[in-house]
């Protein structure tokens, strides 16, 4: 042994030193180290400060279960709250401890410890509940938070892959390798995923033989055979972290084989799943059991065997089971003085004794207390008669027993049973197609693990279990010990969230008797380690306090993720513009080039909001310019995203009569009508125009943002409600792009474009449709109007729209044509009192409330929603009805602002749905939903703003311009 590193052995490359910094100081480790092993090898004992009490913390474990050694990675791959035990060491790595300022050894926050008695469990809930947690959260986070969030977005490159397999094996320890091997030999398509840097699991942490040779030779041979098998995908550094319904598993590969790729998320649909996830060691709760230098015994073995790290001189081993005897023997073999083996059991099995022959063993003893603050100096040990003695040491290796890793199993809603012999929860009944194998199934010992893996793998393949390699291991035996009572000091059950035995007991005293409630009240198990080392200790402590068996206490719910996952790895390629791609019409590019401020028009369509004439033209002026063009000259807008469906078939007319509130079957070809669709609960689904193309073909239009909901509704009605009807529904939103030319000069522009049909008001009146050519392009032209002006919606094939658009701009130039955005459209429709579902429909309004009683065809026998509207209206009561509002004093009204009786601070009687600067009246005008509004035209109502300011408004009909509709019919 040279310094803190063993001279030989370990899975490190002594020829590849790596430099790294921690809290600003430079250190050196080796390839194959984790940040934790490298810190241990450099004698760094205090790695972090704890969450609540700012106690110094060191490395406790060697894996994903690490509760204490949290660090913050700096630099381009910055990320907070990383477990030092899971960060592979790389050249130039920079990290710092969390919760420490200015350094972990001298921590100003530790003054909190002086007031520690004031911070029991439930402290936040009790102390900071008035007037609201949000008031206190920032200050508490600063004082007690974990790592700070990186100040730049993650730089990583991520991708997603989908895989389908007969068998997914989670875990490449002895059982997982054995199961994968048997299944691969049987010709199954296998995915084997393991979170370790290399396969082998616990075999990498121990000195065991398989078939008379080192176990890692067997591991290498199996890995080689799997690599040669054509149907096997073997992933390392790939955590299976989520188990979804029907055997859909989430796997994140953090060191994928593609250069430049940060991580790869796999979504695997597996015929069968084998959870060979091993077991995790748990601690024992005794006073000051969180001090740096207190580690789990199996993790000490990992550091010895995998990293050749041995920074200790004198060790004490504290256990209630056999496994720590192997750890004690390994420590002695590494040249470390084993000062004592403290076993809480009165009777130590003979095979365990034999394993540590020559080492001082004290059966029936317990460690009561740890001495030393930032660094372990010794332990107090109590004999069966209660006499305490001090033993000096710089390492306390603890084993409280082993918990089979049932997280994935339980995520799949498999049940658990408590096994009193193993003092652990084991998989019981599966819900999905899943089997546990190896230590995860309670086979805690190498021969049993190999046999279990082979048996389960063969069962999935439908074969008898094959012979397994020869191996031997110290048989596992345990007598549970959850905690050691001691009058002084804190005995932790959850190091990460600083939860002690006393907190659990407090929760019980305050009436939180259920394990789920204890978890929430104390926050035990709610850290990023999810209580992997402490949860069963909490359950055991509860059981002991309540005089129940741990199986009766039960576990808390296991939820994904098993280990922390980067958001990027979940998102994969769906980042930035690919997360929710924009939909563009054929003239989106033209609009952008024209300088439009682009909005989302709904359903991810990009449409212009308004067109500033110069980059610094105020928005209001641009909108007013566009409105005036439509009212007094001519404008054109891109109406392409409007939802459109063709409905055809012999029963189409009856189908539409059933869907619309008004009758569409009476329409003659080439004629259309405004219509409203309700759902059967009487609420408004959508509005739009419906045109009859010919005897059996119809064109239905709807709101841009409702296209999918409308499609779903139409198909639902056709397929489930009227399956016998001969109706065909084709979404044609993207088959027809359009330029909508509107304004008094629209006809002149159409004439200049050249149309092969008569444009006169007599020959082609409002609410009719013509098919022919416009500007030489095949077109379908609709005389509809959403602005209240003469309007032609010229629909062409999308490939023709750019050409049509150019011609429209050319033909309109003499009339001062302007492209018009959605802001101007909004002003124009509010002036006219036209509905916008997003504004005027709030889930309670029915057609009568909106002044659309006329579309409720009473003579029709039945349409969707008719009965519900009738029942609701028959019930009487005040209705909130659509009105126009004219603010006195000509001030704008915020959308959504409440109307209250007399402007008082009382329950509202309505709200403002829209308010615009009218160009025809040159003042602010609005629409509102107001209680009994239809009967209140001419009255004064009152808008009450936040802060109490009251704006009187005159109630009017919800139409501020051209009430007879002469202009749109012109």
């Amino acid at each position, binding site marked *: 042994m040279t310094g803190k590193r063993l001279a030989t052995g370990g899975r490190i490359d002594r020829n590849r030193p790596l430099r790294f910094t921690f809290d600003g100081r430079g250190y050196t480790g080796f390839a194959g180290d984790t940040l934790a092993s490298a810190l241990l090898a450099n004698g760094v004992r205090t790695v972090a400060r704890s969450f609540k009490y700012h106690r110094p913390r060191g490395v406790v474990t060697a894996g994903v279960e690490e509760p204490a050694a949290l660090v913050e990675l700096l630099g381009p791959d910055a990320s907070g709250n990383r477990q030092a035990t899971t960060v592979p060491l790389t050249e130039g790595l920079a990290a710092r401890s969390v919760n420490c300022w200015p350094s972990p050894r001298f921590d100003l926050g530790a003054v909190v410890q002086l007031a520690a008695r004031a911070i029991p469990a439930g402290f936040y809930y009790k102390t900071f509940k008035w007037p609201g947690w949000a008031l206190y959260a920032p200050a508490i986070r600063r004082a007690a938070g974990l790592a700070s969030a990186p100040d730049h977005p993650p730089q990583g490159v991520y991708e997603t892959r989908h895989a389908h397999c007969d068998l997914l094996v989670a875990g490449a320890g002895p059982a997982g390798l054995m199961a994968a091997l048997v299944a691969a030999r049987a010709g199954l398509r296998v995915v084997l995923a393991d979170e370790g840097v290399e396969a082998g699991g616990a075999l990498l942490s121990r000195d065991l033989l398989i078939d008379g040779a080192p176990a890692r030779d067997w591991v290498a041979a199996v890995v080689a055979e799997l690599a040669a098998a054509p149907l096997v995908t073997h992933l390392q550094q790939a955590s299976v972290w989520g188990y979804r319904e029907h055997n859909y598993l989430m796997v994140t590969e953090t060191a994928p084989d593609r250069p430049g790729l940060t991580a790869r998320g796999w979504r695997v649909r597996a015929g069968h799943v084998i959870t060979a996830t091993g077991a995790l060691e748990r601690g024992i709760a005794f006073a000051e059991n969180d001090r740096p230098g207190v580690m789990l015994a199996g993790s000490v073995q990992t550091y010895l065997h995998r990293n050749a790290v041995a920074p200790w001189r004198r060790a004490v081993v504290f256990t209630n089971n056999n496994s720590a005897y192997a750890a004690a023997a390994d420590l002695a073999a590494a040249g470390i003085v084993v000062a004592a083996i403290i076993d809480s059991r009165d009777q130590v099995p003979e095979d365990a004794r034999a394993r540590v022959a020559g080492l001082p063993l004290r059966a029936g003893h317990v460690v009561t207390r740890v001495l030393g603050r930032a660094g372990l100096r010794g332990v107090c040990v109590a004999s069966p008669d209660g006499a305490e003695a001090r033993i000096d040491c710089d390492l306390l290796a603890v084993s409280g027993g082993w918990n089979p890793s049932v997280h994935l199993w339980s995520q799949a809603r498999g049940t658990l049973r408590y096994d009193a012999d193993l003092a652990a929860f084991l998989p019981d009944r599966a819900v999905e197609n899943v089997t546990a194998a190896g230590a995860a199934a309670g086979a805690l010992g190498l021969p049993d693990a190999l046999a279990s893996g082979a048996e389960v793998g063969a069962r999935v393949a439908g074969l008898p279990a094959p012979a397994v390699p020869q191996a031997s291991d110290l048989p596992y035996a345990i007598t549970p010990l959850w905690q050691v009572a001691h009058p002084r000091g804190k005995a932790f059950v959850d190091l990460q969230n600083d939860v002690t035995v006393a907190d659990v007991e407090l929760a019980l005293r305050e009436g939180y008797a259920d394990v789920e409630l204890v978890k929430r009240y104390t926050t035990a198990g709610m850290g990023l380690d999810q209580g992997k080392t402490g949860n069963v200790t909490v359950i055991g402590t509860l059981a002991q306090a309540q005089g129940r068996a741990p199986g009766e206490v039960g576990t808390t719910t296991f939820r994904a993720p098993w280990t922390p996952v980067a958001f990027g790895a979940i998102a994969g390629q769906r980042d930035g513009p690919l997360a929710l791609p924009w939909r563009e019409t054929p003239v989106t590019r033209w609009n952008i080039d024209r300088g439009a401020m682009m909005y989302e028009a709904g359903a991810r369509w990009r449409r212009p909001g308004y067109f500033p004439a110069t980059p610094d033209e105020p928005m209001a002026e641009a909108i007013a310019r566009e409105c005036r063009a439509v009212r007094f000259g001519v404008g054109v807008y891109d109406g392409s995203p409007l939802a459109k469906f063709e409905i055809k078939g012999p029963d189409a007319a009856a189908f539409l009569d059933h869907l619309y509130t008004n009758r569409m079957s009476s329409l003659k070809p080439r004629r259309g009508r405004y219509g409203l669709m309700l759902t059967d609960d009487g609420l408004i689904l959508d509005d739009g125009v419906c045109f009859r193309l010919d005897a059996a073909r119809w064109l239905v239009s709807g709101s841009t943002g409702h296209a999918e909901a409308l499609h779903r509704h139409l198909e639902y009605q056709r397929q489930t409600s009227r399956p016998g009807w001969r109706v065909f529904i084709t979404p044609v939103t993207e088959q027809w792009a359009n330029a909508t030319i509107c304004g008094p000069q629209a006809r002149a522009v159409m004439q200049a474009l050249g149309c092969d049909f008569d444009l006169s008001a007599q020959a082609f009146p409002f609410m009719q449709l013509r098919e022919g050519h416009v500007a030489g392009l095949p077109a379908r032209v609709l005389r509809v109007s959403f602005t209240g002006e003469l309007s032609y919606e010229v629909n062409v094939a999308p490939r023709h729209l750019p050409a049509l658009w150019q011609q429209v701009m050319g033909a309109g130039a003499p009339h001062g044509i302007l492209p018009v955005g959605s802001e101007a459209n909004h002003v124009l429709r509010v002036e006219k009192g036209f509905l916008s579902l997003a504004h005027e429909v709030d889930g309670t309004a029915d057609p009568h409330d909106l002044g659309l009683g006329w579309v409720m065809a009473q003579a029709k026998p*039945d349409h969707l929603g008719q009965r519900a509207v009738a*029942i609701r209206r028959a019930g009487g009561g005040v209705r909130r009805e659509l009105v126009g509002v004219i603010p006195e004093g000509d001030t704008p009204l915020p959308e959504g602002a409440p109307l209250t009786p007399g402007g008082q601070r009382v329950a509202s009687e309505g709200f403002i749905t829209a308010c615009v600067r009218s160009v025809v009246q040159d003042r602010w005008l609005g629409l509102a939903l107001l209680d009994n509004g239809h009967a209140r035209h001419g009255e004064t109502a009152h808008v009450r703003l936040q802060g109490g300011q009251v704006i009187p408004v005159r109630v009017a009909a919800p139409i501020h311009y051209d009430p007879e509709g002469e202009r749109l019919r012109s």
Partner: protein
Amino acid sequence: MLLIPCPFCGPRDESEFICGGPVRPPRPDPAQTSDADWTDWLIQAPNPVGPVQEHWWHARGCGVWLTLWRDTRSHEIVAGASDDG
């Protein structure tokens, strides 16, 4: 992520579908139904602990509205009466 058997496309991921909720009894004839019965039909959707028949729309697939029986305790898709009859 359920694996949903589409009669036309075979087993497909849930993300291709939109759930249409539990299958209700056939829509009554409004002319033959009391207000109370109509309201019950409208708002009382089946919500059992156990198998429930549901509508799913294969929106990112063939467009069919299919029905299946899903056990609400396990998410297992189980055999049940067809809605064709």
